């Protein structure tokens, strides 16, 4: 095996990335090869140099600048709490829609007569011609109050039995 073939293993060995058996093989070769001894010492030297440079402190002002920019962006955006508050309000509204009874409606289907020309198959909604005045007077508008996390914000859902 020539020295070029050892290069990759020596480079891994220099960073402590070889298993013990492989490391032992590299040590055996390096002990007998002056070229690979130079390669290994050069690798160790350059690694030490870049690690030392990398460990040097970075000016605190750079970190502070990033933090300020991020917080400024987040400060103007709706907070996570608010996002969830609106999702809760929306869910509550859906529940209310499901629970509130729909206005009484009479649904009649147009039934074609045997000898009459076929009418278009359209469902018609017919409101009662004489609504019960007593029932109408007895049904005040329904008001649903939705509370959010913010005590200053309250959502009102107002409906009546006629669905208006």
């Amino acid at each position, binding site marked *: 095996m020539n020295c070029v073939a050892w*290069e*990759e*293993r020596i*480079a*891994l060995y*220099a*960073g402590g*990335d070889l298993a013990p058996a492989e490391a032992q093989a590299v040590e055996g070769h390096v002990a007998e090869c002056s*070229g690979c001894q*130079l*390669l290994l010492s*050069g*690798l160790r*030297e*350059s*690694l*030490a*140099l*870049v*690690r*030392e*440079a*990398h460990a*040097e402190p*970075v000016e605190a002002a*750079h*970190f502070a*600048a*990033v*933090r300020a*920019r*991020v*917080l400024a*962006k*987040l*400060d103007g955006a709706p*907070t*996570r*709490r*608010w996002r969830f508050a609106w999702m809760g309000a929306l869910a509550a509204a859906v529940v209310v829609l499901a629970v509130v009874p729909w206005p009484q409606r009479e649904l009649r289907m147009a039934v074609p007569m045997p000898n009459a020309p076929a009418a278009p198959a359209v469902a018609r909604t017919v409101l009662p011609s004489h609504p019960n005045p007593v029932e109408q007077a007895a049904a005040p508008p329904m008001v649903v109050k939705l509370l959010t996390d913010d005590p200053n914000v309250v959502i009102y859902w107002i409906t009546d039995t006629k669905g208006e």
Partner: protein
Amino acid sequence: MAQAFITMAQAVDGPGARARAGDLAAFEALMRQHERLVLVTALRLLGNMEDAKDVSQEVFLRLYRNLDRVEAANNYQAWLYRVTVNLCHDIGRKRRPSVAVEDVPELVSGADDPHQSLTGAERQRVLQMSLRALSAKEREALVLRDLEGLSTEEVARALGSSEATVRSQISKARVKMRDFVERYFRRRV
């Protein structure tokens, strides 16, 4: 067991949980905890501070938007490394090609030995220039393994590569970096 209790307590009362509830001061504390990891990794990968700051800003904004998921996984570091590397990769691909070691001009240095007579600024210059001599993938592997000290397995996860690929990239990167340093100090083998 004690570690599990600490983790649970952090999940309920830690800065991550408070930040999730919209507490910006708690999120700032989280940023302080991880800012060096993000900014310095971006600086090594991109080679200039302004781009590194832009990437850091985007990383933390994404962290804020994904706090639930990141905290659930309970591994901020792995997530931050992965997102930082991906964003740097996208920016680096648009902006700057790698420079071959042979194309790096020989620089006149007063020092014969890298460990002697080097100012901090000169060490930073050697580091950044030697990183430029690597391909993007080699640079990412070397920065995470040799500078940030991640294990080969962690590097592979952050880069979405196999460990074998990462080992190959690291070994090539180390040899190129050594060639650069040799050239910089005019010490040929």
